[in-house]
């Protein structure tokens, strides 16, 4: 049966067909749907872990126990999971262990565009890279075979355009994999120095063996064109761009094995042409490998650069000197950046912070949008959890004065991911810091995933729910209070009071995400044009449902969910 599938959905299908039985992940664009689709197969146990490190360690445990196991994450998630990765590389696997990592060239939804291939090289773990949905499914299956054959975790590298493009996939049956026998084997699984030293020797040997495999692997493919004047080496989505741009003007070496890469295969291909273009997004991993193995007739980063996404247009411009023709709109088109939704519970908190002119140490989630105009409330955003730990450092550096003017903001899911340890540090090493947990009862930005605070698991079944108030107290914070961000007065009062006290405190701003299906909305609000004085107080909220028409505020009834914070802002009772 043929089906149009997202790369991520096809990958989940590959896990199913390969007989995978355990999957543990943390959501992150563009990887999230792999695990969501995996959860639809009853044959696979799938879960959201609190973070990527826990997820990978769970998959490692399942692999050691003899199951084909899996974990998915976005590129920066692999940083969090890199600690177990670098050591499980030494131990290897029992049941196959596959990790999917999705890079985001062009930063559609990320804070950086790091290249995850570096992690594969540094951890000496095998990495392969598919180009489209059909390959996502096939590579997922092959990854398990290779993992068991070479006793290695296998990373499958994806990217936004592979994960989030749909293409045609041929479905196959599932092959059941009974658990492999578990045998206690400390020399393999207890990585203390005496046992780890021989495993490092094994790892170096394994790299040689996989290189040997890569020379003839079906994951790599040479496509010779009679008309070709030059050769191209590419992988992943870039291969598809290059095929479209260059067609039969080039011969191709499509690389599927990214770490380690073949040697002789590349050397022989490069001998056929005077000029070889190495086309790769982000860093010069393939190009550097070419130079390392004495293939020097390559052109790569000198014309393609290191930043952003490539495309068929970029490739045909750079190689064929083609310019595209197109019409332009006759005037400047205003940009349309993403915004907090109408009724977003974060808006009230950011309005108060902006009004009080507080320094805000931000974090990763929908609420990063609090940095945008007109709220412009956020000072810093670094990585998951950094809001709290960096606030502590900021306050240590600037002392008492700063403590009464700075807060950290972090979502419920991000707090569970890696905010807790920062809060422990605030309590333990004592700064009078104020932390605001924006508890909207869901993981929002990635599209509504459950997390340990929501009381539901990945499958939507009831689960133990972390009590944030009790948790913060247990971590050493005595002042913990809850506010409703739809009440601006209550929220502002709480922030002022907690900034003033000379001890660490946590404010939990609690309201479910306005997009959650179970949230009941009030009818849309209207403005009374007689009463509206056009003072624009309501516009300070940056609500996408409110705009000015002919000097008066108007509310878009298709967007407004009746949250009412604009009513609190209006001094003329003009919003009804």
């Amino acid at each position: 049966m043929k089906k149009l599938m997202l790369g991520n959905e096809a990958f989940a299908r590959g896990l199913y067909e390969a007989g995978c039985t355990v999957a543990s992940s943390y959501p992150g664009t563009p990887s999230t749907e792999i695990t969501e689709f995996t959860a639809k197969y009853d044959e696979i146990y799938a879960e959201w872990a609190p973070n990527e490190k826990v997820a990978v360690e769970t998959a490692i445990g399942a692999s050691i126990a003899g199951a084909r196991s899996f974990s998915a994450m976005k590129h920066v998630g692999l940083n969090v999971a890199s600690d177990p990765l670098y050591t499980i590389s030494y131990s290897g696997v029992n049941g196959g262990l596959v990790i999917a990592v999705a890079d985001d060239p062009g930063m559609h939804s990320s804070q950086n565009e790091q290249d995850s291939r570096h992690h594969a090289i540094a951890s000496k773990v095998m990495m392969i890279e598919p180009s489209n949905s059909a390959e996502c499914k096939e590579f997922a299956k092959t990854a398990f075979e290779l993992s068991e054959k070479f006793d290695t975790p296998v990373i499958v590298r994806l990217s936004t355009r592979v994960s989030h493009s749909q293409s045609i996939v041929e479905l196959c049956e599932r092959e059941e994999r009974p658990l492999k026998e578990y045998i206690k084997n400390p020399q393999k699984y207890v990585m203390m120095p005496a046992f780890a030293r021989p495993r490092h020797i094994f790892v170096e040997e394994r790299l040689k063996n996989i290189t040997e495999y890569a020379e003839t692997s079906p994951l790599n493919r040479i496509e010779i064109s009679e008309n070709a004047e030059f050769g191209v080496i590419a992988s992943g989505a870039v291969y598809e761009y290059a095929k479209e741009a260059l067609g039969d003007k080039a011969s191709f070496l499509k690389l599927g094995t990214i770490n380690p890469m073949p040697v002789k295969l590349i050397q022989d291909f490069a001998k056929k042409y005077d000029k070889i273009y190495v086309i790769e997004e982000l860093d010069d991993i393939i190009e550097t490998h070419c130079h390392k193995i004495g293939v020097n007739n390559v052109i790569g980063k000198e014309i393609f650069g290191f930043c952003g996404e490539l495309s068929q247009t970029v490739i045909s411009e750079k190689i064929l000197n083609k310019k595209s023709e197109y019409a332009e709109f006759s005037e400047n088109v205003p940009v349309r950046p993403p915004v907090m939704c109408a009724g977003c519970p974060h808006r009230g908190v950011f309005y108060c912070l902006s009004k009080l002119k507080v320094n805000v140490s931000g974090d990763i989630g929908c609420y990063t949008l609090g940095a945008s105009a007109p709220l412009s409330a956020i000072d810093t955003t670094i990585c998951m959890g950094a809001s709290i730990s960096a606030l502590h450092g900021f306050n240590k550096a600037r002392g008492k004065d700063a403590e009464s003017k700075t807060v950290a903001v972090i979502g419920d899911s991000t707090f569970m991911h890696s905010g807790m340890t920062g809060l422990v540090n605030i309590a333990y090493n004592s700064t009078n810091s104020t932390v605001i947990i924006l508890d909207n009862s869901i993981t929002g930005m990635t599209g509504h995933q459950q997390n340990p605070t929501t009381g539901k698991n990945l499958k939507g079944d009831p689960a133990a729910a972390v009590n944030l108030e009790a948790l913060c107290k247990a971590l050493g914070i005595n002042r913990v209070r809850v506010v409703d961000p739809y009440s601006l007065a209550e929220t502002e009062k709480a922030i002022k009071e907690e900034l003033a006290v000379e001890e660490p405190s946590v404010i939990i701003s609690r309201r479910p995400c306005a997009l959650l299906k179970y949230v009941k909305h009030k009818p849309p609000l209207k403005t009374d044009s007689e009463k509206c004085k056009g003072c624009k107080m309501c516009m300070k909220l940056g609500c996408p449902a409110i705009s000015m028409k002919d000097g008066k505020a108007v509310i878009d009834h298709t967007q407004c969910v009746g949250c009412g914070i604009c009513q609190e802002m209006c001094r003329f009772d003009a919003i009804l």
Partner: protein
Amino acid sequence: MDTKSVMIVGVGGQGSLLASRLLGNVLLSQGFDVKVSEVHGMSQRGGSVVTYVKYGEKVYSPIIEKGEADIIISFEELESARWIPYLKKGGHLITSTQKIDPMPVITGAVKYPENITEKIKQAGIDIISVDALSLAEQAGTSKASNVVLMGVLSTKMGFDESVWQNAIEQCVPEKFLELNKKAFALGVQNA
């Protein structure tokens, strides 16, 4: 045949994912190689969103670049203006007349351009302008303007209407089926 390219553009939350799923299903049922590329995550929060749909004998790149689209379907007027450069010479633009102010307009930093449709026409571009929002409300909900626009698109694609009906049945939950079929029919009538 050459690869054909269709772009669906709009504002995050307007339902472009359902529209692209519908179109993808139609094309798959006609035996084409198909690729549909979407962006998830941050831009879905009220930002400018775009979905690429490509079909033909063999499709490689899933994305559409400037000067490559045969048809652009736009859910919002400003987005029509934004994505015009992606239209191929002789391509068609189908646009909803809905206007949604982006944040820089809301904050007063810039103005929403006036008479967008007229200006696009003056640039010599073939444009079908439809009040998809009103038609969707007529069908039962403002949320169905995506399916109204698919109805308009269907008149440009040359496939049998039953093919579209099948795709709607596959992509839409039972309880919203009648509503969406009505929205689609209104799109066809108003093309």
